[in-house]
């Protein structure tokens, strides 16, 4: 019997979509700011972990795929029964680490909502194209950028409608109509739960930005950890990224957009390399290679790291080893021979 991979993939996608929709329809209220704020730090982190386990269980596979690109000794292994609650527990009692995890994973939930919305749109366009196969002018053909724009407009429509903002809802509907999306199709999206995901996106982005502001306060008072605003070049694009070096976990980085938040960080430029922006997990596990460095005491470790060619690698290990701001500064200091990192 031949295996129909297309069918399997479609079913897996649909399962992911329905899991996320089901969660946000029934339990999305837990992320509403007023309810969320009533939880203590650990309850918040456990809610986030439980949600990701539910709506994005494929994170283990994504993490392994990411690690498999590295040489074997440098790969971080995940236990077979690894789950995110372990990570959250290991941050307990360290306010800046708790905040870093809250930022990173609430951002991940928001992006999962958006990914599922885009999948929902693609599935609907595929179905419509099948129905209208004989009518060339009715066929939808959108590239990734166009799908992004439609996903934004559909999000806008449902949020404006739920806020009873008729003017904004009309503008969003007009934007959708420009791309040929009809009211009937908007209703299909509603039935499939696009609105619940839009709400999830709004709430999780609020949680992320609130946690960023709180962490800036903690880190500015604490003064022992390196963090700040990095301007990251991505081709011709320049992006604002908020970075925290989380001792023993690794480097946490997320995009930030609120101009005022960016201003708050104007005295905290982040000058070190950005290590693992593409990774799906922020964890305290290490590779064999990283372990081999960590057996050394701090001065010895700093010397070994200075000898590494890759600044990124040296920085990653230094953070995993738990080095703090002043120790990281020593790593980057010009040494006696004038060897500047």
């Amino acid at each position, binding site marked *: 019997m031949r295996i129909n991979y297309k069918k399997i993939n479609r079913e897996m996608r649909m399962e992911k979509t329905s899991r996320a929709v089901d969660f946000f329809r029934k339990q999305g209220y837990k992320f509403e700011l007023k309810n969320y704020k009533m939880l203590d730090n650990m309850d918040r982190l456990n809610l986030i972990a439980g949600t990701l386990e539910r709506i994005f269980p494929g994170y283990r596979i994504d993490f392994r795929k990411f690690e498999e690109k590295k040489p074997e000794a440098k790969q971080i292994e995940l236990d077979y029964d690894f789950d995110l609650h372990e990570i959250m527990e290991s941050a307990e009692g360290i306010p800046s680490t708790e905040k870093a995890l809250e930022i990173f994973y609430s951002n991940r939930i928001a992006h999962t909502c958006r990914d599922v919305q885009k999948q929902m749109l693609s599935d609907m366009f595929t179905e419509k194209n099948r129905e209208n196969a004989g009518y060339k002018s009715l066929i939808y053909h959108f590239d990734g950028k166009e799908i992004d*724009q439609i996903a934004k407009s559909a*999000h806008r429509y449902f949020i404006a409608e739920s806020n009873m903002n008729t*003017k904004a809802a009309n*503008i969003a509907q007009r934007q959708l109509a420009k791309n040929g999306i009809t009211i009937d199709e908007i209703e299909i999206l509603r039935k499939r739960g696009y609105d619940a995901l839009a709400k999830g996106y709004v709430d999780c*982005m*609020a949680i992320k930005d609130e946690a960023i502001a709180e962490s800036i306060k903690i880190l500015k008072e604490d003064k022992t950890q390196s963090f700040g605003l990095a301007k990251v070049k991505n081709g011709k694009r320049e992006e604002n990224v908020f970075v925290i070096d989380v001792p023993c976990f690794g480097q946490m980085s997320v995009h930030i*957009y*609120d101009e005022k938040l960016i201003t708050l960080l104007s005295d905290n430029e982040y000058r070190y390399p950005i290590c693992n922006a593409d990774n799906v997990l922020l964890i305290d596990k290490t590779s064999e290679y990283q372990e081999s460095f960590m057996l050394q005491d701090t001065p010895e470790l700093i010397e070994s790291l200075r000898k590494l060619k890759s600044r990124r690698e040296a920085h990653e290990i230094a953070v995993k080893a738990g080095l703090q701001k002043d120790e990281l500064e020593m790593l980057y200091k010009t040494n006696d021979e004038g060897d500047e990192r």
Partner: protein
Amino acid sequence: MDKEMVENLEKNNYLKEKLAIIDKLIKEQDYKEAYFKLAAILEYINIKYIKHKFNMDMPNSTVMNIVNTYEDKDEKLFKEMLNINAEYNQVDTNDVTIDDVEYLASLVDSIYKYMVESTGEFI
């Protein structure tokens, strides 16, 4: 930009002047700058409104601080500003489109309309 989209903001002379600059930017297709200028107007009207209505200063006017200020005071503005926060997160600042600008303009206009209806002119 369609006048209807910002009809309420246009009623205030000071904001009307600012909108003229935004209009010029849109004609020049500088959507990014137009977007940031609209965001600045939104921040300004929030600060003015909060001072006028609640007699509170906002030295740190991040979107989330504004959200938190409205949390127990005004459900409508609380929700609208949460939406604004998500909007800033979903817009690609390296590739702002006319759709992004128009949607933000409609939000700012309706927020301003609500504020004026709630407290009278405050700018």
